[in-house]
């Protein structure tokens, strides 16, 4: 084992009452690709973002290169040798490639306060050449490049000769095979130069192939560490999964059946719909059917969901339900369409309001009699949902901002179940929800299907799309690139191919 580069001791991180990290100990040594795996929200990115100076820790200690480590910003961290490539796109629009590469380091090219852009462009070209990126030049505006190329710029920006530890946080999901090769080459190069890489990914294949040591997290705690031999062993995947989930989730995590049958009646129809970020989208959603839509985050799938609910402008084509044109949220709800937004806290919930208020928000017109809303009726409607979905709360009067993420999400589901929606469009229904609630959600969605409800599930998580959908639509660059039918043999790698 090489010299220790970074040592994390008893680190804790709290967001208000929510514990994101609990007494985490982690050691990164020279020459290792240290994998971090765990479910969403298990704390992988929290650890690395604290180490990279993006946010402060609540308590604990970090030692980097033998010294106390308290970076106050990403730039400071990078300057001292700890660089991070982020999950989200993180280039600055409206600037050139070179300006993006040297963001925060302009001083190196500045004289009397003016940046010598010729010098900067030349330095940028040198870096790009070193990475084997030839189709981009320093003087090019960043906006003319796609998502993947921008990601490569980020990678090139993160690494220089001083970098001791490189954090790769779910970067590969955004990259095509070519892009991945560039990244893998860079990681190999780091190891050759006796540096270290922290590698976060959901793709188990690459984790098993690349990592020399693997730490498994769950609910902010470290649940296990696998050394190189254990990683390469045959049963490693089973061990890792068990550590990640903490219990045997069995086959019933998603739907157990592989029957893609549904009723014949069309519940919601998109015909030739075009609009912002969506081109010629066609879909017939039937009763009793779960249609999944997947793709990279800019592919237009979220817009499709909003269009189905009348909350996004349609330039061409029609969205219809039961013969009615849907062009506003009012028309959508009148036709029993419900929409669970991806942006839960801003679009789906009134955080500064009670659970009762939130659950009944869409149903007030239905329960009012000659304009009168009976408070008893309202409380009863909410209570039924609280019991049905097992929302953990003291009473319906409790404010939603005091609930956990999972229970918040249950409230936004409850709103539409209370309304009696027959068609439910859900955008990232299990985002930021812990695994127990996740399983409950999947059960609920399956039950809704069995009741003959039509479900359009838009998600960034391939596993749940494959696990739940009767039909899976993959979108790329605003268009449908592929449609899959439910089958046991469908794997994530089959699907990813059509996303990028």
């Amino acid at each position: 084992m090489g010299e220790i580069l970074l040592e994390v001791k008893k680190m804790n991180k709290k967001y208000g009452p929510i514990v994101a990290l609990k007494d985490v100990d982690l050691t990164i040594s020279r020459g290792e690709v240290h994998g971090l795996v765990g479910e969403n929200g298990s704390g992988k990115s929290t650890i690395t973002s604290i180490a990279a100076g993006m946010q402060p820790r609540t308590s604990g200690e970090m030692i980097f290169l033998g010294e106390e480590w308290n970076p106050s910003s990403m730039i400071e961290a990078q300057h001292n040798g700890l660089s991070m490539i982020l999950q989200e796109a993180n280039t600055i629009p409206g600037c050139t490639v070179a300006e993006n590469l040297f963001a925060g380091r302009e001083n190196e090219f500045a004289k009397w306060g003016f940046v010598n852009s010729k010098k900067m462009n030349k330095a940028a070209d040198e870096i790009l050449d070193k990475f084997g990126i030839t189709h981009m030049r320093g003087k090019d505006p960043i906006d003319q490049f796609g998502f993947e190329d921008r990601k490569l710029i980020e990678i090139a920006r993160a690494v220089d000769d001083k970098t001791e530890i490189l954090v790769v946080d779910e970067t590969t999901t955004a990259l095509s095979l070519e892009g991945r090769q560039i990244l893998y080459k860079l990681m190999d190069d780091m190891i050759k130069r006796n540096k270290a890489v922290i590698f976060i990914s959901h793709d188990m294949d690459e984790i098993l192939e690349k990592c020399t040591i693997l730490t498994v997290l769950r609910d902010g705690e470290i649940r296990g560490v696998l050394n190189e031999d254990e990683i390469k062993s045959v049963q490693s995947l089973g061990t890792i999964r068990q550590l990640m989930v903490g219990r045997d989730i069995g086959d019933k995590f998603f739907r157990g059946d592989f029957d893609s049958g549904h009723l014949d009646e069309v519940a919601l129809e998109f015909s030739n719909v075009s609009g912002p970020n969506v081109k010629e989208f066609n879909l017939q959603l039937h009763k009793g059917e779960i249609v999944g839509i997947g793709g990279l985050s800019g592919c237009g799938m979220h817009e499709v969901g909003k269009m189905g609910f009348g909350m996004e402008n349609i330039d061409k084509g029609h969205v219809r339900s039961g013969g009615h044109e849907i062009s506003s949220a009012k028309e959508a709800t009148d036709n029993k369409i419900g929409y669970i937004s991806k942006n839960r806290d801003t679009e789906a919930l009134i955080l500064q309001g009670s659970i009762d208020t939130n659950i009944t928000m869409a149903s007030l017109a239905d329960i009012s009699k000659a304009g009168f809303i009976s408070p008893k009726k309202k409380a009863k409607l909410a209570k039924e949902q609280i019991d049905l979905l097992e929302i953990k709360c003291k009473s319906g009067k409790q404010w939603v901002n005091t609930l956990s993420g999972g229970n918040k999400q249950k409230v936004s589901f409850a709103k539409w179940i209370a309304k009696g929606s027959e068609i439910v469009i859900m955008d990232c229904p299990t985002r930021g929800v812990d695994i127990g609630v996740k399983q409950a959600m999947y059960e609920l969605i399956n039950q809704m299907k069995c009741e003959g409800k039509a479900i359009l599930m838009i998600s960034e998580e391939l596993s749940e799309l494959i696990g739940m959908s009767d039909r899976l639509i993959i979108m790329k660059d605003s268009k449908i690139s592929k449609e899959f039918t439910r089958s046991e043999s469908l794997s994530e790698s089959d699907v990813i191919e059509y996303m990028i």
Partner: protein
Amino acid sequence: MKKHVSMVRFSEHISDILSYGGLVLCIVVFSILSQGRLFNAYNIKILVQAVCVYAIMAMGAIFIYSMGYMDISVGSQVGVYCILCIVVTNKTGSLLAGFLTILALSLICGLINGYVAVMLGLPSIVTSIFLMSIFGGAQLLIMEKLAINSISIEYDMTFFKSTEFMIFVIVVIALISIYLYNYTQLGEYVKSIGANELATSYSGVKTVKWKVLAYVFFGICVAVGAFMLTARTGSAGQGTGTGYAMDIMVALLLGGMPLSGGMKSKMSSSLIGSFTYVILSNGLNLAGVKVEYSYVIKAVVFLAVILVTCRKKDGVLPR
């Protein structure tokens, strides 16, 4: 743990405690300072007359403030309504015609406040500044045309300025407001618009429609309030209505209304606040405080209330 719970309860009800406590404090302090004159028969009549106009308009204003909006055109609206009511009544000899004229005008204002802001994509405060200027100009113009400093009503207002009638109007408007605010969609939606407009529209609520309805109801309250002011004073002039917009805002704040609106808004704020504000002004007067100092005292009280209620997280100042 128990202590923690009681602390939570306390902070939840802090605005209630402050507003009711403030009213009680005002009553106690000024009863003593005025040596009991605060509640003699004559002064009670004065109090009711003063409260009437504030309370009626404040109850309508609750619907606007609940959405996190404010309307600063009230003052100049009141001025024009009072003058028009008198002019029309004197011309036609019918008080009803006068009242209906200002009611119609107030409904139009409600529509403008609601629709124009939405259609032009402007914040409501902008349309309300627009209306304030228009009405301010109109008020001056009308008085200039009439070529007198103040105009008096030539109709017998004895019945309409009786304390009994004023109490009757307060009660009627209060019952309507409480019903609309607590037991109908309008009330629910104005609160939820204030708390999160986007989430409200994502629940299939046509927010524009309810905004306009809220402004229309407020308009009706302003018209009724202006009518009661006309009845009380019997005359109107260039200065009529000045300061009402701010007075109502102060009254609502004293009553514990959060300026950002939302689910913490309560109809009771309008009544509690109006009484507190009127007793504060009247009490200072009775206690022999000079008018110029009473402004300073009011300002200090106002500042104190804001400091206590707004300087916490999720406070009551507008977003």
